[in-house]
């Protein structure tokens, strides 16, 4: 192949970034026009599709890594960009999300009250995410990372008049700064005294084991705060729901993945051989994140906040896969490490698909009813049948139900856990089964959570007039949802194709790959060996379809198909008011009881009038996140106390200031003298 042609995909990637930035600039003007949103989202859709095709082409042809150096950025280094298998996989995730969000935005964006607050930032945000993945030196990586954070922060504040959005934006900004600080330190440690900030030089000189472990922990904090690892997750359920729904989909579905990309890039690519005990920490944090995330999701009544907490859970599941891959890699177990990493990467792709789908569904509900509170919804399956069908597939996929895609990646993670007894370290031998048990718990709780979400929003009787008069959303939104729902099916039924697509990525990172899956008979997947385990989504789907249809046909042919409509029975005492239905909080009540005393800080208050009193009775539930109570509350108070103490420095006389300056100078000189 000619040399110029080799660099095509990286070039396409950078062109896509430049194109998106151009659209952002145009949007500042176009936002004032009535058809500005169509121009901006249409152009973003085309550019994202081009980036998606370039990345797909690079990954599927197995092309060699491509590097580009632009003369912008730090003097002497410039800005380095590199497209390898890992970057192209994450470009696929980012641009798939970007393209579907743009398609959705074509319809959804028309309802935007203040388009100028969204339109310029949306393409800029997409460009920032692409740039993070392409960056090949610490400087451009951090600049792109901050660009991504700030543009999404602007989108979180799109509706800045709501006080809770202002708070969300503030918390987001603080946490993003904190995370970037950790990443900055991680890169600084890796660059060493020579200041080799290009990734190529970091790759060439792996740090010493202990330094490597420090870098890994800093990366875990830095990337984990962006991805939503407990206890750094607190900003996520505030900020993700505050943005417009297609941006929420990008933040939950894609930006958390870009953060995970940062972790994978640093830990699997740049620091080389990991120390085994670091995987212990990653696994513990990941398993706690998965369980806490889904338990809090279950307690939410706000649909978008529920989805945001469920993102926390899924990030935990991804990190469980990554932690297992680290553990196996530290013990030089090639195939298990490849299996665990494949599971994590596959779950990244799956989660980006179904979480975008679910946020689009939530956005459709919001457009149709103006409500995010599930207690005010209900019965939407009659008013919005198409949205309801797509949302149902998303719920099934995220609850890890076969034959959809979420099940496959969780199944692969379970298979990786079952090779766990092979690790030699005793700490890991106790950690891995614990993680397995917690993963099983979170998978089961996810099903409960999404039965609640779907059942309260789409089923039952409408609880308010808004829900009763909702209208189906536009065709663009529906198209975006149905494309993603179809992807959920395809990835669930033909997972072998996706596993093979991931195999060059995995081979680059852990030096081993899973056996090829595509041409196995009946399109089944066999992670290690046929005798050990196999799964066939296609056959399961076929069996389900055939047996269900056969049963229905048999009954309709040989028994009866007569149907009568009548009133609700409800054991003879139907209550005509929709308020008598089970609500979101009442659905979650048994689980709140079971885990309430240990995990949640539940405050329940029953206010029951005495017999004869005519006032209404009340029931208050308050669920607190212990992270706020034990971690953030005290640290905020400490910062305030220090600030108040230092505040006195503002009111000194000029003599005191001069003597302070003098004392500081003497102190510094003493330090220098002691140092030498």
């Amino acid at each position, binding site marked *: 192949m000619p040399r110029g042609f080799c660099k095509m995909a990286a070039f396409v990637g950078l062109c896509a970034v430049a194109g998106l930035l151009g659209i952002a600039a145009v949007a500042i003007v176009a936002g004032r026009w009535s058809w500005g949103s169509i121009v901006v989202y249409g152009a973003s859709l085309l550019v994202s599709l081009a980036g998606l095709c370039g990345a797909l082409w690079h990954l599927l042809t197995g092309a060699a890594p491509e590097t580009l150096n632009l003369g912008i950025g730090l003097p002497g280094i410039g800005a380095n960009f590199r497209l390898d298998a890992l970057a192209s996989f994450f470009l696929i995730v980012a641009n798939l999300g970007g393209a579907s969000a743009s398609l959705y935005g074509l319809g959804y964006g028309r309802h935007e009250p203040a388009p100028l607050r969204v339109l310029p930032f949306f393409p800029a945000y997409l460009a920032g995410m692409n740039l993070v993945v392409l960056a090949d030196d610490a400087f451009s990586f951090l600049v792109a990372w901050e660009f991504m954070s700030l543009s999404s922060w602007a989108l979180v504040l799109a509706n800045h008049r709501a006080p809770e959005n202002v708070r969300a934006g503030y918390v987001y900004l603080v946490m993003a700064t904190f995370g970037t600080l950790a990443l900055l330190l991680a890169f600084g440690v890796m660059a060493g005294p020579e200041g080799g900030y290009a990734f190529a030089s970091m790759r060439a000189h792996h740090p010493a084991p202990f330094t490597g472990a420090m870098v890994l922990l800093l990366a875990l904090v830095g990337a984990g705060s962006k991805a939503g690892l407990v206890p750094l997750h607190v900003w996520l359920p505030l900020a993700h729901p505050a943005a417009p729904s297609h941006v929420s989909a990008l933040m939950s579905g894609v930006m958390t993945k870009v953060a995970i990309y940062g972790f994978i890039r640093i830990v699997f690519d740049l620091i080389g051989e990991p120390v085994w005990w670091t995987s212990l920490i990653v696994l513990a944090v990941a398993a706690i994140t998965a369980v806490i995330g889904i338990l809090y999701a279950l307690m939410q009544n706000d649909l978008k906040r529920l989805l945001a907490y469920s993102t926390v859970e899924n990030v935990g599941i991804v990190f469980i896969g990554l932690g297992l891959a680290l553990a196996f890699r530290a013990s030089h177990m090639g195939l298990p490490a490849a299996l665990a990493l494949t599971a994590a990467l596959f779950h990244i792709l799956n989660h980006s698909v179904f979480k975008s789908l679910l946020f689009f569904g939530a956005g459709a509900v919001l457009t149709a009813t103006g409500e995010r509170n599930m207690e005010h919804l209900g*019965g939407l*399956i*009659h008013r919005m049948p198409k949205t309801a069908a797509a949302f*149902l597939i998303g719920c*099934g996929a995220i*609850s*890890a*139900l*076969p034959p959809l895609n979420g099940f496959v990646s969780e*199944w692969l993670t379970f298979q990786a856990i*079952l090779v766990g*007894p092979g690790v030699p370290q005793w700490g890991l031998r*106790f950690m*891995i*089964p614990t993680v*397995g*048990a917690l993963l*099983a718990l979170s*998978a*089961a*709780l996810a*099903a*409960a959570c999404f*039965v*609640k979400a779907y*059942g309260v929003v789409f*089923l*039952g009787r409408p609880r308010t007039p808004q829900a009763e008069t909702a209208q189906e959303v536009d065709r663009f939104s529906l198209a975006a949802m149905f494309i993603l729902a179809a992807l959920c099916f395809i990835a669930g039924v033909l997972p072998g194709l996706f596993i093979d697509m991931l195999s060059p990525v995995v081979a680059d990172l852990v030096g081993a790959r899973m056996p090829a899956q595509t041409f196995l008979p*009946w399109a*089944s997947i066999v992670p290690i060996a046929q*005798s*050990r*385990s196999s*799964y*066939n989504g296609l*056959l*399961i789907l076929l*069996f*389900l379809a055939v*047996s*269900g249809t056969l*049963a229905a046909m048999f*009954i309709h042919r040989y*028994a*009866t198909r007569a149907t*009568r*409509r*009548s009133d*609700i*029975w*409800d*054991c003879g005492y139907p*209550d005509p008011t929709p308020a008598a*239905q*089970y609500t979101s909080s*009442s*659905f979650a009540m*048994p*689980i709140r009881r*079971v885990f309430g005393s240990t995990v949640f800080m539940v405050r329940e208050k029953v206010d029951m009038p005495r017999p004869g009193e005519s006032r209404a009775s009340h029931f208050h539930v308050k669920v607190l996140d212990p992270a706020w109570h034990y971690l953030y509350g005290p640290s905020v108070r400490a910062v305030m106390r220090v600030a108040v103490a230092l505040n006195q420095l503002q009111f000194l006389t000029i003599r005191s200031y001069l003597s302070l300056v003098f004392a500081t100078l003497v102190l510094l000189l003493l330090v220098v003298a002691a140092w030498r």
Partner: protein
Amino acid sequence: MALIPDLVVDLIAQAAQMLLVLALAPLVLGFTRKIKARLLRRIGAPLWQPYIDLWKLLHKDAVLAHNASWLYRIAPYFVFAATWVAAALVPTYAANLMFSWSADLIAIVALLATGRFALALAGMDVGTAFGGIGSSREMMIASLAEPAMLLVVFSVALIAGTTQLSSIATTFATASVGLRVSLGLAMFAFVFVAIAENARIPIDNPATHLELTMVHEAMVLEYSGRHLAMIEAATALKLMLYFSLLACLFLPFGMATTDKDWAALGIGVSSYLLKIFVMAALLPIGETAVAKMRVFRYPIFLGGAFAAGALAVFLLFVSRSF
């Protein structure tokens, strides 16, 4: 033998297993009811009463509430299909059947979860308090029982070195696995999970409609006619599945594993029937001996199962010989 007859024999063996579980499931349910009735000093309905019930329900009109959606009408068939496929994938009289590799034990547990997901949604569809209470409690029980079940799966998979149910059964039936602490704990956990999943006493009472602690029956309260028949058939199949799973994992003797001549198949079928009916007799004996629990005692019951399963897995992670 030539290739084609082999394939045909395999297909017939697989189809026979699918039809066997479907045909036997109501009989097994009738048998447990009969034993229970005799234990309570009643004569009880005849053994084939479940067949008569299903036939009668199939020929009645399905009465739907005015606001029942398409999901409500599809769910019974879906639940039936998911349970039937899961039940057909559990080896009964013979291991290594044709499609046994298409789903392993984890996938079978997940298929049951799929069925439960659909049924819990259907329970919320009409918008009654009974449906909601049933769905909510069913999902609470499932979210505690499913992890315990997966820990049981882990422990047998760690002993056999595979999650493939046929291979597990073959290993346990032929190799000298012997009595193990971990298997005992796993079986203890499995029995607890099976009781909870099948809505039997002390978790739920299958014989009642009007009791505040009811779970499964409240969820399907609005169903009638052929839809109810599908759900009842699925319930019977699920009980059958758990019996088969118990037989296949913990009592695999007699099963035809590698050679499938007539003698081996005959021994397989008769030993399978013997195991199933012994278990179907033991279940009501256990049920009449205990009282139903309050709802908020369930976590203790299922937490016990979870702890036993976790202990079994921990033991196996320490050493495969436990």
